[in-house]
């Protein structure tokens, strides 16, 4: 089993530009330490239509109003997430979709960086196995540690979970095992596990060897327990 940079075609060049956008890094830094409820706020705004801030403050009173003052919620962080999410929403449908994907990948990388040495953390990598035709699509994030490799596919929403995705992840795990290697495939979805399970329920592709990380359990990527809702 070996890892390789993905070929740089036109799509990857354009997408690399989005991944490198400062807004992606800013949003990922904010979501890294956000509460689960603040992550839902970001998801709602970046899925939504309203690009004015006040309606969102009304819709999420526990993150902005006097109710926020009684808990662990940082109103300052909520405001920063609101502002950054609105910037993404303002980019227009096509671009916002690409930004959302890049943000999930960037958050995943940031959380993994708390647990994994920086030199082992890579993105947009293919995994090659002897005698096996390489998959076309690279993995969004990889942890390249001998004997304990991990491959991540990141999705904005549960609807992104498809048979192809599940097969690719499980095939990688199986091929690694055939070579006596250990590879943990992980599906990271910036959506509630309940929605993911609905999506998975009608999939026949293998999934038992693939770990699912959803919006409420993102902190597990960093090796820490999910925090209580706030």
């Amino acid at each position: 089993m070996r890892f390789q940079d993905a070929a740089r075609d036109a799509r990857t060049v354009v997408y690399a530009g989005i991944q490198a956008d400062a807004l992606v890094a800013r949003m990922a830094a904010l979501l890294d330490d956000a509460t689960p409820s603040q992550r839902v706020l970001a998801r709602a705004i970046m899925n939504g239509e309203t690009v004015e801030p006040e309606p969102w403050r009304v819709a999420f009173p526990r993150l902005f109003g006097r109710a926020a003052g009684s808990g662990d919620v940082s109103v300052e962080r909520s405001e920063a997430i609101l502002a950054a999410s609105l910037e993404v929403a303002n980019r227009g449908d096509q671009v916002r979709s690409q930004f959302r994907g890049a943000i999930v990948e960037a958050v995943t990388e940031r959380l993994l960086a708390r647990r994994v040495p920086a030199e082992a953390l890579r993105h947009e990598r293919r995994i090659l196995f002897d005698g096996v035709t390489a998959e076309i699509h690279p993995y969004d994030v990889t942890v390249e540690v001998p004997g304990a490799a991990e491959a991540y596919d990141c999705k904005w929403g549960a609807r992104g979970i498809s048979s192809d995705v599940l097969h690719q992840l499980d095939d990688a795990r199986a091929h690694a095992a055939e070579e006596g290697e250990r590879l943990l495939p992980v599906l990271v979805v910036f959506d509630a596990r309940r929605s993911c399970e609905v999506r998975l329920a009608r999939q026949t592709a293998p999934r038992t060897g693939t770990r699912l990380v959803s919006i409420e359990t993102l902190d597990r990527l960093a090796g820490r327990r999910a925090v209580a809702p706030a």
Partner: protein
Amino acid sequence: MTSLPVLAERIVDAIGRLVALAEAVDDEWTYIHDLEAVWVARLRAVAADRVSEAADSTIEPAIDQLVVESGLITDPHRAIDWLSTLPQATLVAFGEEAW
């Protein structure tokens, strides 16, 4: 003060409108209805547990705003996203776990 079950039903109605919009995506018909079923059940379960509780004064405006926001959705694909997002945001407004 409006009760939580009443507010939850406003969201259930909004979910119903999103489902009607999302049904235009033919190959996601089953997923759409499965999503509706599990999230409506979750919202009603939360509401039933807090049936005698009057909603905090910030909750009703929050729910009304979420209904307005979901009503702005006109794209069937975006409606599918909102079928998952709207219940999560509602549960946050209720002070519940969003899942």
